[in-house]
């Protein structure tokens, strides 16, 4: 290189710091930055904040210390909230009840959701092309309806005197059921009120899974099914041995997303039962909300939220681990 060339070398573009493929990296960074900022601000930071809260006896009604209200009248108590969760206080009992109800809710609602949506997706996929859109629209409609409206509608359906379900029961000569208000009523060991809110939640949410499963069904090569049929397999065996195994990745995705959604169940339950009767539908997010915003126990609510975060994380990792596939097909 001559001395002249050395002196007039153009300045390096700043994104060249990213290396030889700087332009591409710059693009990737620019594209990711808004999303990354959003996630940091609204997801990572609240998680850190919640964890911090759980180590303090923090209430927003107290001014506390100078740094974000921590300390002073909102004292640091270490792991005391987590220790108290094992105790016999009313709060601890409510937490444990909520945790059990949340697990029951999620582990009943997710299989129920899939039991409804898988056959439904297959059924919709099998109808004439002209009607598919119509059925997809009909079944997706509840999902785009606000949860408040869904809860109000289902609450009315369950009304002990005027509700549709009891009108039908009375019409066929059976005793009406107090769906949402009788703590004695159980079905299969699960409170009837919990079944009632599960049914409403599944109805509201099933549209998402339906779309995921229909998309997955459309991606399965028809040649596999045709080969099985040529070999004499019945439609049931085609579904059981071809369709269902190939749907597995979609089912795993759907069940993971649904599980996460149901672990956070709140709005429908709050409107339909507000946790009653006798705390039989009190789920963790409702308990967190009541502690944080009705009683001002933000520290305790933070500890509960952190436990919920760990459970959701654990269950999701477990689901993903169990569902790991070591094959793929080419169309």
């Amino acid at each position: 290189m001559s001395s002249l060339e050395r002196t007039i070398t153009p300045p390096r573009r700043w994104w060249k710091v990213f290396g030889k493929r700087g332009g591409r990296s710059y693009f990737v960074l620019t594209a990711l930055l808004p999303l990354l900022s959003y996630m940091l601000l609204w997801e990572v930071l609240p998680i850190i904040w919640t964890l911090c809260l759980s180590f303090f006896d923090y209430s927003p009604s107290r001014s506390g210390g100078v740094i974000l209200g921590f300390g002073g009248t909102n004292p640091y108590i270490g792991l005391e909230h987590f220790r108290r969760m094992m105790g016999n206080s009313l709060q601890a009992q409510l937490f444990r009840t909520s945790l059990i109800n949340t697990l029951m809710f999620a582990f009943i609602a997710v299989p129920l959701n899939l039991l409804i949506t898988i056959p439904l997706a297959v059924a919709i996929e099998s109808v004439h092309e002209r009607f598919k859109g119509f059925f997809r629209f009909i079944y997706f409609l509840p999902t785009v309806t606000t949860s408040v409206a869904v809860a109000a509608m289902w609450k009315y359906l369950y009304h002990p005197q005027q509700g549709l379900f009891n009108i039908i029961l009375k019409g066929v000569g059976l005793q009406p059921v107090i769906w949402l208000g009788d703590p004695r009523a159980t079905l299969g060991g699960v409170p009837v009120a919990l079944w009632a809110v599960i049914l409403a939640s599944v109805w509201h949410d099933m549209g998402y899974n339906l779309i995921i499963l229909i998309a997955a069904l459309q991606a399965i090569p028809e040649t596999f099914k045709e080969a099985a049929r040529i070999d004499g397999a019945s439609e049931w065996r085609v579904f059981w041995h071809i369709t269902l195994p190939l749907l597995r990745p979609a089912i795993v995705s759907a069940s993971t997303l649904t599980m996460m959604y149901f672990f956070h169940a709140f709005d429908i339950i709050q409107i339909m039962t507000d946790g009653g009767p006798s705390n039989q539908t009190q789920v963790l997010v409702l308990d967190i909300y009541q502690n944080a915003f009705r009683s001002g126990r933000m520290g305790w609510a933070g500890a509960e939220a952190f436990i919920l975060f760990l459970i959701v994380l654990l269950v999701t990792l477990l689901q993903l681990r169990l569902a790991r596939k070591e094959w793929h097909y080419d169309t």
Partner: protein
Amino acid sequence: MKPNSIKVLFYLLLLTVIGGLLISCGNQAPSVEEQSPQTTEATDEVVELRLWTHSNSSFVAANEELIQRFEAEHPNVKIKLETFDYDIFIQTLQTSMPAGTEADIIEMFGSWVCTYADGGRLAPMPEQVATLAEAQNAFFAAPLEGYHCGDQLYGLPHEFNIEYGGVLVNPALFEAAGVAYPPTWGEDKDQFVADAAKLSQFESDTMTATGFHFINGDGLPFLLLAGILQEGGEYWKPDGSGLQLNTPEAQKTLTWMKSLVSEHKVIDPFLFNQENNSVVEAFFSNRAAVALVGPWAAATGKTDFPEIEFDYVAMPHMGSTPAFVADSGWGKVVSVNSKHQELAWEFVKFVTMNQEHARTWNIKTATVPALQSIAEDPTLPEELPWIQAVLPILPHGRYVGPLPDRNLFWGEIAYPHILAVLQDQETVEDALIAMEEEVNETFEAR
């Protein structure tokens, strides 16, 4: 991009976001010592005060009118009214106070006040507004005591919140059941129960209408506490360190409440409770002949259910005296973060202590006055006819007291246990022991 570069950028971004938030949050809530309420009255500069209230339309209308009157008398002051749905209002208070973004003046419920005052969120009321003795002379004790924390007042009430003493009655259901109307029970408790029993309707074994609906989140605890006082008992421990609920008076009251269900069959506690067929819902759909609820429900009913004919009448007391417990009431407080506290307090005094303005607020919101002089005004029932039923008992009302967590006691302790007794899920004694233990835990936690 090299993985290391991404990592470095990620951590830098994380630090920037966290740092920025910490700084901004830290700066938003200046400590009490940093602030000096400014006196701007002497200048011509227009001062803007913010007032927060929940978005009940009658409350909003009342505040708007009083703001107009205040602004007319104070041309240098603009008051901006900001309203929130009830649930959102509580959440907003909880989140705005740590950030120091709350309004100068807040319409707060009396039983919340000491929690916020003890936490250093509210400004103490200066004696220039009213001394404690002046306030005690002017207001009923039950609503005022909610604003009295330690030796200091932190605001003034508009309303005497009362959920006991009056009942909604449905003349059509009385007529259908052949029960005399207007009710003839007067102070005769047994007659009241007998009428309620006759008013219950059944279809085979299923209750279709309740003769007396008293099972709701507010009603049950108020009924129990009133019963204890009326039987000559006391629910506070003598040293004020907690509650004593497993007492003969409490047992007698709860046993009587249970007899209404099991013996007199005035209500089915599974079909009619807070979750199903709540008091207001059941009454205004003709499924409750008599309903225990505060007079506010009568005002709501006149607006929302004009087609239903009803009255609001006094209910006989359970024991030898008409003593009862009240939960303070809505009133106004000033934020410790307000830069114009002097003006804010002037507004509070203007709307709560001035008889004309306070009366306007009560009439527009259809609430029982906290100011004694308004309640004693014989012309008041002309504008608020349903208040007539509870006016005679107001002097017998007592503030519930400084519970560490009022909502927890009402919603998670008293209501569920009393309901469990009525539903035969728990015995009277077990329920009272459990309630006492659970509520006293909240005192220990404090």
